[in-house]
């Protein structure tokens, strides 16, 4: 900025500063509004400082860097705050009942003060495992097709498809499951496996919708790691007379193994913590399942279907916070595992 313009600009700022001081007094004495008074006073002080302190680029740099450090540090603080508040909130329930009692008892009856999570944990494991069993082969195979086989045009079309699928809100998934998968499981799939009393709301329906929700995560991460395999490796295999599938099986899968594993861990985390879509179709009963088509409850959907009673049963809040803590810790462990796998692999595999 040329010097004379800067001077005019500063002059105007001084006027604005005096005006804001004036306004702040008006708000204090005439309207008795402390908030606006403080706001204008702060504006005045900032302008005052701006007028008298020579703002050099060096000062900007120092202030800006400090601010960035502060924000970043507060983010890390937030991470630990989340953990601390969740632990602090679940102390109540842990004092009321022992940890083993919470985890190994399977009666969840908030109104009589019983908070056994065993059945819910079993249901969660079953739902997550089944959904991953469905999702992993389908997504890894599609990722291979997209990365290695597909013509360029098709690749251009499928990318937005995957992105959109990743962005669809979980409620919408839940609605579709309600309309399509519930009748499908009730009328076709469950009777096929000899279960004629299934209502359609159950573990298997939840697993189906979860596997669809996990597709985009695993596919996009797998495609990324398949593309990262150096082309020389593939060419070496092909030149030795291997077919394309043999190259995929013996070279690409091996070279990008850690990437696939990390993708699976992330997908697992998503399936494990998904709340709304599961809560809509799982049947919401805290039972140890007798069959895959019977109703159940996962840890996350337990929170969604019980939170309304928090105000009438104080200890229930603590129990739900404990459930959230379990979710947080499990996701933490799986992310760390994924990270370690990737880091170890990048040290060992260097091509």
């Amino acid at each position, binding site marked *: 900025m040329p010097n004379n313009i800067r001077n005019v600009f500063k002059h105007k700022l001084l006027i604005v500063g005096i005006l804001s001081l004036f306004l702040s007094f008006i708000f204090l004495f005439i309207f008795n509004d402390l908030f606006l008074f403080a706001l204008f006073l702060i504006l005045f002080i900032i302008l005052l400082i701006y007028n008298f302190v020579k703002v050099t680029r060096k000062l900007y740099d120092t202030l800006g860097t400090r601010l960035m450090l502060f924000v*970043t540090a507060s983010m890390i603080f937030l991470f630990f705050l989340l953990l601390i508040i969740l632990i602090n909130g679940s102390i109540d329930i842990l004092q009321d009942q022992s940890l083993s009692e919470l985890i190994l008892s399977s009666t969840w009856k908030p109104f009589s003060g019983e908070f056994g999570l065993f059945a819910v944990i079993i249901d969660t494991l079953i739902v997550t495992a089944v959904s991953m069993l469905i999702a992993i082969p389908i997504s890894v*195979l599609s990722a291979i097709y997209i990365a290695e086989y*597909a013509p360029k045009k098709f690749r251009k079309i499928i990318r937005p498809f995957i992105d959109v699928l990743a*962005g669809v809100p979980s409620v919408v998934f839940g*609605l579709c499951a309600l309309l399509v998968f519930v009748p499908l499981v009730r009328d076709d799939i469950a009777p096929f496996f000899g279960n004629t009393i299934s209502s359609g709301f159950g573990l298997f329906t939840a697993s189906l919708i979860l596997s669809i929700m996990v597709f985009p995560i695993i596919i996009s991460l797998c495609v990324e790691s398949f593309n990262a395999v150096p082309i020389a490796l593939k060419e070496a295999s092909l030149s030795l007379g291997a077919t394309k599938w043999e190259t995929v099986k013996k070279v690409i899968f091996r070279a990008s193994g850690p990437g696939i594993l990390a993708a699976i861990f992330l997908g697992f985390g998503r399936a494990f913590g998904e*709340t709304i879509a599961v809560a809509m179709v799982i049947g919401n009963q805290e039972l140890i399942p007798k069959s895959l088509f019977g109703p159940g409850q996962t840890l996350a959907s337990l929170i969604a279907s019980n*939170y309304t009673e928090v105000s009438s049963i104080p200890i229930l809040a603590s129990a739900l*916070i404990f459930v959230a803590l379990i979710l947080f810790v499990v*996701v933490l462990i799986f992310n760390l595992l994924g990270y370690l796998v990737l880091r170890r692999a990048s040290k060992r595999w260097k091509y």
Partner: protein
Amino acid sequence: MNKRNLEEKIFLGLMLASVFIVMGSLILIVTVVVLNGVPSLSLEILTQTSEGGFYLGGGGGFLNAIVGSLLLALPATGLAFLFGITIALYLQKDFLNPHIANFIRLCLDILWGVPSVVYGVFCLTIMITIGMAGGSLLFGIIALTLLEIPIITRCIDESIKMVPIGLKESAYSLGSTKFETAVKVVRRQAMPGIIAGVLLGFGRGIGDAASILLTVGDSNYFPSSISDQTAALPTMILNLVSMPDQVVQNKAYAVAFVLLMIVLLISILTRYLTKKSSKHIIK
């Protein structure tokens, strides 16, 4: 030889089948929502707020939910963007030791993976502690901000990593300070990533139900202050679909249609804007 070719054929078939399943599932979702949503959609339902007994077959529309969702997601995205861009710029080698930066990235990745219901419970805990039961717009915004910060930060961070070192070095050699380089050069160069990150975060925020469900409550009116309860699109779908009446349930598909359209629009907008903004970056 024959056996090997057969194996190739079989697996190619399996791959095609799985791609078909993946694409089919998205097409299925869109058609289900469109087929069920459009018939119960009308101008009236889009431009009016809910009247009393909306969930019992009463009149009115869901404009309050649309406005509520925007009032939740827009401020949350703005806040998360401010946090995200500051952190992402600070994670550069120029400012921070790469080891510490990688630790922060790990923390962010973990936060990204944390189920949104945990953020909801986190805010619910604070609400119970300070005695503000029932829910409010403020805590919904906080929950969504927490949810969006890791998404936006990691997206911006990835695109900042791609900024060529030569560009930064030439800025330094012309005498600009670290902060100036970060704010004026790196920020401009990372623009496509910033846009993609912000829109991704917004899409996630407006569609997320679990954190909202626990924190905002419900209301038939526009929120007039930050401590009011408010309606939102995802929670309204949940409320509508849990009603026994078929006519009321159909309204859920209309709401879902609007939500899906917003998400699709964001997706298209992301493609268009990233393409447009990447014209001006230096490769």
